[in-house]
């Protein structure tokens, strides 16, 4: 009897500890799950460009490559009131590179935008200097780089239907040796 009682007294604090450990695990799992869910929602749902509360600024959506796909990064730029200036700002922000460390640069640091213009058929012309070709790419990386420009422009400027690249103001047959650049690129992005 005494032995049993003694046993009961000793066991009680142990049970409490087990419950506390379970509760702590539950809380940690809930928080981690919530964070993961929040992250997956932000990565799959592509936000629309919105005017921010900051006066004269607009939030733009940029697409940068990872090793496997394109990922979104939002950024604020000064609103200049016309599509051409907005397109130019989007390309300059792409050239400046991603802020998120897991994303990759599309072109080397120092590459410059020489000109940007839009034609009446919805084609955006991106005229880059030759430094832009300084980061060699395999075929998939080239695909993601082209899509990075195209999707970033298309997402923020609704009537852009294609992009065409020029290097030092001249037409080129390809940028990195795999994908044709003589014609405007208008292919929708698919994760591969």
């Amino acid at each position, binding site marked *: 009897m005494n032995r049993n009682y003694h046993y009961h007294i000793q066991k009680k604090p142990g049970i409490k500890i087990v419950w506390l450990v379970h509760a702590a695990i539950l809380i940690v799992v809930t928080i981690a799950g919530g964070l993961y869910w929040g992250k997956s929602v932000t990565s799959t749902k592509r936000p629309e460009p919105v005017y921010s509360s900051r006066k004269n600024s607009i939030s733009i959506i940029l697409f940068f490559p990872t090793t496997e796909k394109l990922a979104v990064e939002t950024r604020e730029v000064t609103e200049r009131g016309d599509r051409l200036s907005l397109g130019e700002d989007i390309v300059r922000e792409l050239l400046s590179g991603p802020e998120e460390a897991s994303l990759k640069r599309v072109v080397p640091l120092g590459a410059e935008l020489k000109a940007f213009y839009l034609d009446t058929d919805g084609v955006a012309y991106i005229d880059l200097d030759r430094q832009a070709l300084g980061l060699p790419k*395999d*075929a998939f990386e080239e*695909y993601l780089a082209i899509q990075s420009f195209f999707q970033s422009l298309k997402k923020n400027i609704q009537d852009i239907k294609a992009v065409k690249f020029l290097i030092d103001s001249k037409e080129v*047959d*390809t940028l990195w*040796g795999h*994908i044709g650049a003589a014609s405007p690129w208008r292919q929708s992005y*698919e994760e591969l």
Partner: protein
Amino acid sequence: MLIAVTTAYAATSSRRALQEEKGWQFSGPVRSAEKMMIEKIAGIDKLVIDPGHGGYDPGLPGEKELVLELARRLEEVFTQKGTEVVLTRTSNRYLTLPERVELVIKENPNLFISLHVGRRFFSVFNMTSKEVLIDSIRIKNRIIDALSTSFGADKVLDRRFPVYLADNIPTPGVVLEVPSDIDFTDAETRSALLQAIVFSITENEPELSLPYTEETGY
């Protein structure tokens, strides 16, 4: 077998008749059923190999040299098997993508392979024009199987996005990227790669090449 030969003969005869009577031009090589049979037995009688990049376009570090070296070794193997081989470049010079296409059209081979280097994987793209799609997919699948067997399925990708040569070459074939992290200075690795390419093209009865016709629909 008899049906296949009859269909092929009918298709090529019909195509020849349309060319003679109406002056229609068809893209892709014209081959008779008899010649196709000989090809099935003898393998590939003409092959164009395209070492990517070159000249001022180095590709990935070491790429232009590696693909030229690989092309030369493939040339050696196929020549020994009695195949006529043409390389788009035999030195460190740059050809534009349209120039490479023009050369292939001029040479009119049975098969085309473009060689590149990828960052981490073997990537294989098939030619996509309607006339050569079926044959190209067949060749691509065989190469993927062979590479998967030799190097592991996790190293081989079947890629599907627009690559210029794959979309513009009117010949059955593939664009093949070999991964940069594989050591091609190692004789065993190099030999495994060459065998995978050569066997997948020559040892599995390649059925080249039924050209596109209205009758066959592809």
